[in-house]
Structures are given as C-alpha cells and as structure tokens.
C-alpha cells in the first residue's frame, strides 16, 4: 500500500510552494505510529489515528532540510529521509498492534500516512520497527 497524502498535506504543499507559507510551529514533521486498524483516506485528520503509547515508544522528529529529494525522469520524483528505528522495551500499552505510520506537521495537522505491509506487535525488550520515510510526487488526474 502506498502513501496517502491527506487533504491538509496537499494544502501544505501549495502553501509552501506558492505562498512561502509554513506551519506556525515550524517546518519539521513528526513521524508517529498508529495502532488502530484503519485504511488511510485523504479526508483523515490527526484524530483519526490512535498513536502508539508505552513500551518505550516516542514520536520522531524529521527535520526540514534533511530530506533527500530525487528528480524522477519518467517516474515519480521522491523525497526520502534516513531510516528511523524504534527500539521497544516491551509491549505497548494494552499490548497494542502497530498498523502503520503517519506524518504530522508542526501545528498538529496530519500530512500523510501509510499502512504497514505487515503489522507489528512489540513483545520483547529489544524488538525494533524500522521505517524509511519516502514521499513520491507525480502527475495525476485533476479532480
């Protein structure tokens, strides 16, 4: 399943590109894991997602300016960030299962999300989940 860019994420791109307008909280993004078994949709909000808790989990900050953007010729261009790894100390609160991850802007609005190819349930100290954030952009059919 590919990345779903939510409506607010699209607006953020236009705001930054066309008006040099950024979230008041800054330019970094927060990478978070969600534990409700949903399929990301474009109209989702941050509240749609239940963020993981417990087990040593903490959201990760992705610094603006640290992405590597690659021009795609005949294929989608993309921006990628260094691999992010969560090392858990044990089970999440409620023995929750991680179903995916989402990016939230500095004002708390969701930008994009993706469901993992395989869900992950931390169980033991030292269990790890690694994700390499990557956002692709290409031509599409205007609505």
């Amino acid at each position: 399943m590919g990345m779903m860019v939510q409506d607010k994420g699209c607006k953020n791109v236009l705001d930054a590109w066309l008006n040099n307008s950024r979230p008041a909280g800054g330019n970094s993004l927060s990478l978070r894991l969600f534990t409700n078994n949903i399929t990301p949709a474009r109209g989702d909000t941050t509240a749609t997602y239940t963020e993981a808790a417990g087990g040593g989990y903490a959201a990760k900050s992705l610094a603006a300016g640290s992405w590597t953007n690659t021009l795609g010729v005949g294929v989608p261009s993309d921006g990628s960030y260094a691999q992010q790894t969560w090392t858990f100390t044990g089970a999440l609160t409620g023995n929750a299962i991680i179903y995916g991850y989402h990016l939230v802007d500095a004002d708390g609005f969701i930008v994009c999300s993706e469901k993992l190819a395989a869900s992950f349930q931390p169980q033991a100290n030292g269990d790890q989940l690694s994700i390499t954030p990557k956002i692709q952009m290409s031509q599409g059919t205007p609505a």
Partner: protein
Amino acid sequence: MFKLTVVEITPETVKFSIETAPGQSQTRVLGVGTSIDLQPSDQRLIDHLSSKGHMDHKTVLT
C-alpha cells in the same frame, strides 16, 4: 515475499529481522523459553532455526 535475516544467535536469545516491504523492517528478540504469536512470514525463521537445532516447531527456543 518477505526477506528474513537472522541477526544474532546467542545461548539465550535469537534476534532476527524481517524486511516486510521496501523501507519497512521488523526486528524481534526471542529469549529462551519465550514464544510469540507468529505470522506467516515467520515460517522461514522456524525452518531455519529448526535446521540448526535452536527451535522446535512449537516456536519455543530450546
């Protein structure tokens, strides 16, 4: 298809990594006498460790 890599085997634990998709991987640590709920992707780990005498098919380290 998942790519599974055994990262480390010690007398007490086995650590293995599963590449579940491009840019996504999971690493698990199992200790002696512990067990986990397995997904279909773990079958190759069971086969691998069984062949080396580290695990029986009840998924408990021996």
